[in-house]
């Protein structure tokens, strides 16, 4: 299975976590940030990112504001109050899942 398929399930959590740290970001910036953090090991496709951003916005977890940059409109996403709370719980949930997954994949680690 490619890493992009593994990434798909946790994309919303990644977006929420990035916005929790960064305050506001635009679509292209998010893709580049993930690339930079993982040294190019993970890359988010725009075809998956934008529907996730739009869904989170519709769910009220993200809010948007526009800004004119170089004579074009840039749409920034940021967390709402509710989004902040959800981000913290989703990140904790994913961390615990990864820990358990690690235990399953490498039982010796779990025994220690």
């Amino acid at each position, binding site marked *: 299975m490619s890493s992009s398929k593994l990434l798909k399930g946790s994309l919303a959590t990644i977006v929420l976590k990035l916005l929790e740290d960064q305050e506001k970001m*635009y*679509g*292209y910036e998010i*893709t*580049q940030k993930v690339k930079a953090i993982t040294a190019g090991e993970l890359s988010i*496709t*725009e*075809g998956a990112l*934008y*529907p996730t951003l*739009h*869904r989170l*916005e*519709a769910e009220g977890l993200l809010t948007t504001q*526009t*800004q*004119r*940059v*170089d*004579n*074009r*409109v*840039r*749409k920034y996403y940021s967390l709402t109050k509710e989004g902040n709370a959800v981000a913290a719980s989703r990140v904790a949930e994913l961390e615990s899942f990864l820990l358990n997954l690690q235990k399953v994949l490498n039982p010796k680690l779990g025994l220690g």
Partner: protein
Amino acid sequence: MISKEEQQFVFDYLKKVGVKHMEFFEELYDHIVTSFEDRVDKSQNISDHITNTIQPAFGGAVGIRIVQQKQEIQRSKMIKARFLSLFKEYFIGWPSVLISITLGLLIYLLNQFFDPKWILISFIVFGALCPLITSLYGIEKFRSYCRRNRLPYQLSDLNRRIASFSTIGVMSVNIVLNGTLLIASGSHNTGINFISELPYLQIPIGVVFILYTLVCVQLFKEKFIIKLAL
């Protein structure tokens, strides 16, 4: 900064792949241009950049259309949720519920002085047409704003979604009148006559139509885009 020709190329590309609404157009245009300005190989032209970088990342032109469709679905859901929550406010929210009660009393009082049939017709016509006319006016105003400013699009998906809610009133008139005619009234009677004779139907229907107008007006005030803020 990209040149005028490159800008036009992106505009044409977006139109060709079917991106015609302001919201996704602006977002995708910014994405393409930022990505192009950020490219590693500076000798790569805009056409090659779109073909080799943008299109694969979105899953081709079909992928772009899918992203747009998904956004439209999400937007519809968002407006529907807001519409229902505003409507609910008038029944269980304080002090909004006072408006509903006042409207009910107003219809009751008007019934004492005028023909209930004409009161119902007035409320239904006003309730059904007011949101429709307002939304059509808003759409046309946005279109003329875009034309005046020579923007590469003339439609806002948000406006279009809100406008679709403003047609519910007109459709409801048909359902309310023909539905009652078929189900409850005889062939000698019309739906409007039948409802007008029953105050427990006439008053709530009149109230609901006016509340529907108030909800639509609130939606227009909150979300409708007449001109760009920037």
